[in-house]
């Protein structure tokens, strides 16, 4: 049980990372222990995969102490365009 919900995490990521798109899904049936996130931000430009994930992890450092499972897909705006194209093709 953690005190965070997807709305809270979305807002925090959006503000702190100046993200253009964030969606966080609670996969724990509401108990707040498991989330998955898609984050699109220009803050990721020029960063490696590892650096992007580190940035997100450090933004949520406090929260991750309580959230048991957190998975993320973090894209730059360019990468996000490609992802959306691929999704449309499928």
């Amino acid at each position, binding site marked *: 049980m953690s005190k965070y919900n997807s709305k809270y995490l979305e807002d925090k990521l959006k503000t702190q990372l100046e993200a253009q798109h964030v969606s966080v899904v609670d996969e724990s049936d509401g108990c707040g222990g498991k989330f998955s996130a898609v984050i699109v931000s220009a803050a990721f430009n020029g960063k490696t995969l*590892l650096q992007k*994930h580190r940035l997100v992890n450090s933004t949520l450092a406090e929260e991750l102490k309580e959230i048991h499972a957190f998975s993320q897909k973090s894209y730059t705006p360019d990468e996000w365009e490609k992802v959306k194209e691929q999704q449309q093709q499928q």
Partner: protein
Amino acid sequence: MPVVVVTEAEEYQKRINADKTTVALFAADWAEQCGQVKDALEELSKITGDKLQFISLNAEQFPEISMKHQIEAVPTVIFFAKGSAVDRVDGVDIAAISSKSKKLAESASSAAATGQTLEDRLKALINTAPLMIFMKGDRNGPRCGFSKQLIGIVNETNLPYETFDILGDEEVRQGLKTFSDWPTYPQVYVKGELIGGLDIIKELLANNELEATLKG
């Protein structure tokens, strides 16, 4: 060395910050079980010799310290290495207290023998094999969904790898998070470099970069 009863916050700080790993019993006079644990610690202190130091303090006398370590019931035993809590046992679980103390005493003596610090140990561990996975459980029995998925993906590449079960070593479990600035497990290392966790491995797989990355 017998169990030292600590009555001053200053002495407590000095003790837990010492190089020697500290086993601290948070107790209360009115709780009979605390005496039982204290007796057990006296016995342990004889076995472990000078590898560990044992202290006992009255939890109610130190509300701030008790709060900091979320002592919700007495007795609680907390293990400190250089000031930070590395493990704990809540309640009268003599078996757990004893096995954890012995383990810490062993790692203290091996560290003393080789002069190895935790950092040296972590560096050696992440370089155990070119492809190294720190996970919960092992490849045959992953003990968390993420570790299990990870092993499944890495097995597909047919690359050789070694694993380390962080559930069996609290010092490594906490230490590696700080050392590598990565808050979760599993963690994948190639030639001693952190690649990332499951999300990153999945993304590399999706981008057809996984095999090349894992080969280093």
